């Protein structure tokens, strides 16, 4: 049975396979073109995106458990560590 979801996934699969290169006459035309749907869900795209970032700009946080009285305190600690690293 062809559910809408299946239809979309096949369509986007075809788009990836059949249209690896798209050509535009102008930047405006390119900006108007629909962004190609990538494989998997948004969450999988997020995980891939993070994995690339973690690989390109690796950070290694000190292991363990850290306690904060407020979210602001937690964010400040995060920023301080990022600045130091």
């Amino acid at each position, binding site marked *: 049975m062809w559910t809408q979801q299946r239809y979309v996934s096949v369509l986007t699969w075809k788009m990836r396979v059949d249209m690896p290169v798209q050509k535009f006459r102008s930047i405006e035309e390119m900006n108007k073109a629909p962004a190609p749907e990538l494989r998997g869900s948004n969450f999988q795209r997020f995980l891939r995106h993070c994995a690339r970032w973690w690989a390109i700009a690796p950070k290694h*946080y000190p292991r363990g458990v850290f306690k904060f*009285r407020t979210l602001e305190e937690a964010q400040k600690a995060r920023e301080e560590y990022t600045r130091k690293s």
Partner: protein
Amino acid sequence: MTHAPLTRYANRMDREEVMRVLRAFEVAGLEYVLIGAAAMAFHGLVRTTEGLDLFIRATPENVEKLRAALRAAYEGDPHINEISSSDLLGEYPAVRYVPPTGDLYFDVMTRLGEVTSFETIEAEVKEEEGTHVRVATPAALYRLKKGTVRSQDHVDAAALRERFNLEDEG
């Protein structure tokens, strides 16, 4: 000069690690709601992050479920025992856990200010690879982010407002 193969990133463990933890949350029966960048991703707004943020229901039983889930995902990490209900239900409502892998961390919260807690964050259940994930709604994320001082939250709030046509309340 040599180039690393493009498949290098796809094979990293981090993606699997996140899914393993989410599955462990479900198996343990943890009552939680995902907020932050991971929650935004479920709503189609994708950006990078180094931390997964979640609110949990503030009960000793639920904190024990959190510990059980993390023990299942990161077997043998003694630091997990440092996560305690006396902290999360008391003076330290925000706890950061950095697992042995060290390149991503979990910010676990039980309350934010006087009004924000697991019970007050509107959420919906999403399914990812057969795992059920409780995620804050776009409107709830917007409310959480619009009032903070962090610049990234302002960017996120603007993206949420635009994508979901959200209006400021009262």
